[in-house]
């Protein structure tokens, strides 16, 4: 009886140690397979989008429908997005301070459910008669569908 008892305890201990080692190995293996460049790449794409839409003056229009169409055209199908443009204007001719312009802000897909999103930001100026009309901050959130 006693001989059998010790044999079982040894076996149980050995099995536990082996199981822990095997699970640990596979856990570390799966951890090592996480795509470290995936998020960096999505961040690059999000910044590319804001830069190009700023350079080709699409953002300056502050036209929600136009900007949304362009974003749908440019962004890969596997990426979902949310865009928020906050528009400020000078409080005076000396432009010492900016105030939020109510009614000018652009919100695209505001109710989309974000999953581990990545944010890109870009500020830009809108001119009118060679003078700064608006100062805007665009915040684009992008995530995998």
């Amino acid at each position, binding site marked *: 009886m006693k001989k059998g008892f010790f044999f079982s305890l040894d076996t149980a201990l050995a099995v536990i140690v*082996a199981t822990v080692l095997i699970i640990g*190995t596979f856990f570390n293996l799966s951890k090592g397979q996480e795509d470290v*460049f995936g998020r960096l*790449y999505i961040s*690059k*794409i999000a910044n590319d989008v804001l*830069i190009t839409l700023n350079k080709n003056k699409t953002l300056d229009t502050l036209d929600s429908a136009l900007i949304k169409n362009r974003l749908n055209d440019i962004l890969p199908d596997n990426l979902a997005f949310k865009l928020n443009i906050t528009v400020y204007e000078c409080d005076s001719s000396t432009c010492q301070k900016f105030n939020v312009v109510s009614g000018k802000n652009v919100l695209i897909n505001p109710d989309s459910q974000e999953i581990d999103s990545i944010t890109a930001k870009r500020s830009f100026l809108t001119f009118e008669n060679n003078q700064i009309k608006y100062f805007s901050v665009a915040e684009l959130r992008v995530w995998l569908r």
Partner: protein
Amino acid sequence: MGLSSSNKLKGQFTTTEFLMIVFVLIFLITLATVIWNTVGKTIGEKTVKNELQSAAIDISDQLLKSQGLPTDWEGTSKIYSLGLVVGDHMIDEGKLRSMLNLPYSQIKSSLGIKTYEFYFKIVNLSGNIIQVDGKNAEVGLKPDTASNIVNSRRIAILNNQIVYADVITWR
């Protein structure tokens, strides 16, 4: 003094115990070998993929964010670094044309590519390759038979049009 039969057996393996131990040992050695090989293979593949991904992003950044060195490299024979833009993400058609006419080996050395191959193309939003002077805007070697391929698709502007710049690194 003679030993009793029970004392003779004390501390000895029986055939069944011996077989069980051998079986367990063979099983553990096989398992360890399989895990070792799997880990080695996974790490190796991951290292190659990481290198290619990092390279693809670096190359696309270099091409789309810098003018190159010297900045007017398209007019010189000594090119230290390639860059395609006049402003951030604004591709200059003249620089692109010059790059398309460079030998592949010179492009590779100017981009710091050593241990892998690369292919670059500029396509419109429909996926068709842009034409520059009647020539496809593509350089490098296509990865027809490669096992490790990474594509970094970036967004830029060429002639007031939004385009995709695809950098593909492979081995």
